[in-house]
Structures are given as structure tokens and as C-alpha cells.
């Protein structure tokens, strides 16, 4: 019998605190939905969460649920149910796995937190800054639950973010208020919004410090760790508990730095991950790089939850800028400059591009960018085919060979 290999993944001690916090968050939501102690709003992950919190909504993020369906590997079993009712296998697999989860009445929240179902929404709020799929995804639930669907339509492929574009988003955000007042039965309170945005901004600063710790050689944290520890920045920004968590996590990473204790023992190579994680393969990928003494130190993905413009004195302007200046919203030229800066800051040896079949908006390898950047920076790269959730679109052997070949090339 084959000998079981010891995992090379170093556990982050703060994980227990994060798990407790996430459990608290989901149980509060469950209670709100079951006892009607608070209204529940579903929000896209880079949507106007601060505005919803200012109204006292419990805010639930279907994309976070999508990621859980991916990590739990329930997604490939649930996606076919959504396909069967007309949702193409080519569209966002967060959407299809989440719709499949609803149709099959099977959620990872049950195993993780003892929660029977996702919390029933009172309102659905989207922002199309990431893609159009989120709008169509939420439309499914509008029909199922017969609740209001409101949202913000953001321009895409934006080069320089112009004031008129930001102003348009400000107008759209303010336009959500009447519907939110009606659903929540609360009057809008600008002071409360200021408090929530300020809290969200402090969460951003904490999360940024965590990610920037990876500039250290050796890095105290990997991209794969980051995809897990970003949870509070996604679902609890605007809630002070998230700020506290990132202080705890950062202190632990700082200690690792002081002790020269890298996340990967004997770190020799450093890579940047562009695109979505393959949620069902996080552990396998983390092990593969660790066994080759390679650390994936940074990513566009984890950095997408840093919202520095929230520092704006006007909270609407802050939210509008934060949700429009995002990497995913921007033009190819902007993205190229951004990645160039990341390569320099994190002192990387190469790029890994994930061409996620069902996520064209977050697969930035499709218009020649990897080749242009490789030529400019003289850094090698690999593009691998896969998907965020649909493992039927991923070949373990092909990906492994490509990662190992990249490692060989720079070793």
C-alpha cells in the first residue's frame, strides 16, 4: 500500500478564529432569515454591501456560496441540474452550481455550519462590474422568491476612470435607496453609511497589509492561503469584526517574517496567479508548488477585494470609485500595467494564467497579454485551461505538467 505523504502546507494558526467568525456570520444570517429579526439582502461580491449594511440588512453573498460549492466539490454534481433547466454549461459555473444547489436542495452550509438552506432573500442587489452573469443569476432567484431585483450597471473595459462614469454610478447607487427603504422599512441614514464605509475601508487596509506581507522573501502566505482568508473581506466588510480578524492574521504573518518562516519551506521560486482559483483543487495546487519549493505569492483575485477609494469623504463617491476602479472592470492596457507593477513589487519569477472556461471576464490571457508581458518583463508564463468550479473542464495531468514545466524552466 502506498505510504501516505505528509502535507507540505503550513497551517495558519489564525484560521480557527476565521472559521469561528465565518460560522457566526452564517448563523446570524440563518437566524435573521428564520426569525425575521433582520431583513436579508443578497449582494454580488463586489456590490454595494456597505449601503445594504447601513440599512441593517444581513448581507449574503451567493458568490461566496459558489466558492464553497467549488471547494466542497459539490459543484460538478450540481451544475448539471442547472444545465437541464436551460443554464448553459458555458456560463459562469458559480451561477450554474448555485442554481443547481438550489434545485437539488443541497448546500455545503449544512455540513459546515449545520444550516439547512441558504437564507431566504428579501431583496437581491447586483453590480455588473464583474460580469453580466451575476444579473442573470440573481434574476433566477427573483423569479423563484418573487422579491425585488435592483442593481448597478457598471461600464466595462474602462481605461482611465472618468468623473462622469463615477458620477453615473453615484446616481445609480442613490437610485437604490427608495427600494431599500421600502424593503427594510427604515429611512436612509447618511451617518450610518459613513460609519459602515469607514469600517469597510479599515477592513481594506487590514486585508491589504496581509496581502502585501507576501512581498517579503520568503513570503509568509501563499495565494492559496489568501483565497481562504479573504472570506471576511468579502462577506464582513463594513462589520468591525473583519478588521479585528485581519489584525490577528497580520500579527501572525509578521511573526513568520521575523522568524524567517516562509509559507513554503525553502522558498526558491515566486509566482503570480492571474485569474480565478480552481476551487476544487486548492489543496492539490498548494501541495504541488510547495513540493517544488515554489510559492505563489500574489494574485489579481485576492487583490480584488482591496477598495482604497472608500477613503473618500463622500461615501457614495467612495463606493462608486471603489467598485469601478477594480481590476476586473478595467481595460487590457490598464491590466497590463497593473500586472507589471505586481511583478516588480512581489519579485516574481513567472506568471500563471488560469484560462477559466466559464469565466471569460476574469481570464485575462485571451487577448495576447501573457506574450506581451513576457516579452516586456522577460518573465516566463504558462496558461492552463481549467475552471473555477466545473472540474469537468479541468485536466489534472495537463495542469500538473504545465506547472512543473514552468518550474523547470526557471529553476
Amino acid at each position, binding site marked *: 500500500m502506498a505510504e501516505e505523504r505528509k502535507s507540505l502546507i503550513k497551517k495558519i494558526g489564525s484560521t480557527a478564529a476565521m472559521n469561528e467568525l465565518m460560522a457566526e456570520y452564517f448563523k446570524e444570517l440563518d437566524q435573521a432569515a428564520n426569525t425575521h429579526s433582520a431583513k436579508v439582502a443578497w449582494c454580488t461580491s463586489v456590490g454595494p454591501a456597505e449601503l445594504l449594511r447601513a440599512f441593517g440588512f444581513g448581507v449574503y453573498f451567493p458568490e461566496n456560496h459558489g466558492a464553497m460549492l467549488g471547494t466542497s466539490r459539490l459543484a460538478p454534481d450540481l451544475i448539471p441540474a442547472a444545465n437541464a433547466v436551460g443554464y448553459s454549461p458555458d456560463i459562469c459555473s458559480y451561477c450554474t452550481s448555485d442554481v443547481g444547489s438550489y434545485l437539488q436542495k443541497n448546500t455545503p452550509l449544512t455540513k459546515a455550519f449545520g444550516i439547512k438552506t441558504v437564507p431566504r432573500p428579501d431583496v437581491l442587489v447586483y453590480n455588473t462590474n464583474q460580469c453580466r452573469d451575476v444579473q442573470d443569476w440573481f434574476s433566477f432567484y427573483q423569479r423563484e422568491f418573487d422579491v425585488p431585483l435592483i442593481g448597478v450597471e457598471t461600464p466595462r473595459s474602462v481605461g482611465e476612470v472618468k468623473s462622469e462614469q463615477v458620477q453615473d454610478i453615484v446616481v445609480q447607487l442613490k437610485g437604490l435607496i427608495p427600494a431599500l427603504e421600502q424593503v427594510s422599512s427604515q429611512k436612509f441614514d447618511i451617518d450610518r453609511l459613513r460609519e459602515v464605509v469607514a469600517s469597510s475601508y479599515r477592513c481594506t487596509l487590514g486585508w491589504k497589509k496581509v496581502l502585501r506581507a507576501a512581498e517579503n522573501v520568503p513570503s509568509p502566505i501563499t495565494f492559496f492561503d489568501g483565497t481562504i482568508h479573504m472570506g471576511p473581506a468579502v462577506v464582513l466588510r463594513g462589520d468591525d469584526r473583519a478588521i479585528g480578524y485581519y489584525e490577528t492574521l497580520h500579527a501572525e504573518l509578521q511573526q513568520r517574517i521575523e522568524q524567517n518562516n516562509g509559507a513554503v519551506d525553502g522558498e526558491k521560486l515566486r509566482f503570480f496567479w492571474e485569474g480565478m482559483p480552481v476551487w476544487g483543487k486548492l489543496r492539490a495546487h498548494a501541495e504541488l508548488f510547495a513540493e517544488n519549493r515554489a510559492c505563489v505569492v500574489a494574485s489579481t483575485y485576492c487583490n480584488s477585494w482591496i477598495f482604497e477609494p472608500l477613503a473618500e469623504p463622500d461615501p457614495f463617491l467612495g463606493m462608486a470609485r471603489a467598485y469601478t476602479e477594480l481590476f476586473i472592470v478595467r481595460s487590457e492596457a490598464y491590466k497590463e500595467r497593473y500586472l507589471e507593477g505586481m511583478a516588480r513589487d512581489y519579485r516574481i519569477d513567472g506568471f500563471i494564467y488560469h484560462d477559466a472556461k466559464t469565466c471569460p471576464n476574469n481570464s485575462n490571457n485571451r487577448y495576447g497579454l501573457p506574450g506581451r508581458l513576457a516579452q516586456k518583463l522577460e518573465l*516566463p*508564463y504558462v496558461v492552463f485551461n481549467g475552471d473555477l468550479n466545473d472540474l469537468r473542464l479541468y485536466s489534472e495531468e*495537463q495542469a500538473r*505538467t504545465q506547472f*512543473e*514545466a514552468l518550474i*523547470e524552466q526557471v529553476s
Partner: protein
Amino acid sequence: MSNASSDSPPVFFCGVDVGASATKVVLLDGGGDIAGSDVRLSGVDYQETAEQALAEALAGAGLAREQVERTVATGYGRRNVGFADEVSTEIQCHGVGCYHWAQRAITVVDIGGQDNKVIRLAADGKRLDFKMNRKCAAGTGAFIEEIALRLALPLEQMEELAASTQRAVKLSSFCTVFAKTEILSHLRAGVPVAEIVRGAFLSVVQRVIEMDPLGGDVVLTGGVVAHNPTVGALLGERIGRPVIVPPQPQLTGALGAALIARRAV
């Protein structure tokens, strides 16, 4: 190099390439010349197939197992070769194997049973970059196997038919199933089978051309060209210059692995 004394038997270096379709073994002597080799279908038990391939290569060369100083395994089944001292990717091994023959800057195109690779090497043999095909049979040996099945032809007859005509139908689908449907239309229209087979070869070539601009001297390797030289000729026609096909092109990955084994000692 080995410190074997003059009265001990000479030592050899082994490369094993366990591909999705075929397993290849190359034995190199201390001077870097091929002393023995074997090619066989990988089957379902990679470990056993690798053992058999090694035994056959040793027997063919009149060597004993103890004379193998070091073994490097490559290919999709590289981790299943229990007797290997080291593993290396097929990207690395094909590069090293081709450079051994070319000794200059080259673009390697490997058309395998399940995937294609394009590897660019600098004048000193250092790898500049590489690409692999998307996860699809289009452009690989698997495509030709599927088409042979549809046309009810033994694989060995495909080359003969493709070489027998200069005319080729156009098969434009990426999808193998769609391509087979296209073939049905051609058959219904009375197109000779040889033109369909040549069209299938051209389709493989077209998928490869879509992967990379293929600059400089192009070296073509892999089982597909080993069994179907017309694929090499068609690729040359499409890029406007002849491609270089090394001796025993199916063995290039195993050769590269053996060269890496030899280098490590």
C-alpha cells in the same frame, strides 16, 4: 560521468517516456549513443508496461539490468515508473531530445497521442517558452484515431491513403464529433476516402499552426509523425519551409530523458 573501472561492465542511461498512448524506452551508452530502445502501447498498467519496455530494450541491446546507472521518467505516467531515479516533464525531455539532434535554436512541435506541445529553444538549448494545446482531441493523434474509426480503417492504412492523393477535403470543426459529422457529409457527396484522410491530417496540422507562429527551424516529433510522415510534409507546406524530423521521432522524449539521466551522473 561514471567512475566505473575498466574491468567492470560499461554503464548505460535509461529514459522512459510513458505517454497516454505509447510507452517508449531509450538506453544510452556513456558516449551518448543509443544502445537500445522499445516502443509499446501504454495500456492500463503503466508500471508493468514500463518494466516490459525496459526488459525488451535491454534484451535487444544485450545488456543486463544492473548496467543501467540512472533512469529518468517522463510523460503522463512518469510517476508510475517505480525504477526511475528522477522525473522530468515531457516539455523538458522533448526539448533536450530535439536539441541533441539540432544543436541550434529551434521550435519543437510534438504531436502526441493526447496533446501537442510547441517548445522554443535558444541557440544554447535553453528553453525560451512552451505551449500546450487546449484540452481537446483536435490536432492530436487521438483525432486521427477517431477519424480512422469512423472510416473503418486500420490506423496503419491512414498514411498510405493520405500520401496517395494531393487533394484534401477541408475539415474545419474544432470538435472531433463535429468533424466526424462533416465526414459524413463528404462521404454522402462521394468524396474519395483518401481525400478525407488527407483532410484529417491537414486538420491536425492546422490546429498546430493555430497554437504558435512557428518561427525559425521547426523540428517535428511524436508518434503521429513517426507513423504518418505525410503530416510532416503537410506542416512544411503550410509554414512554407520543410520541417526537420529527427531519426525515430517517437523516441525523442525518452531520448531527452536518457540524456538528462546521463547528465546527472
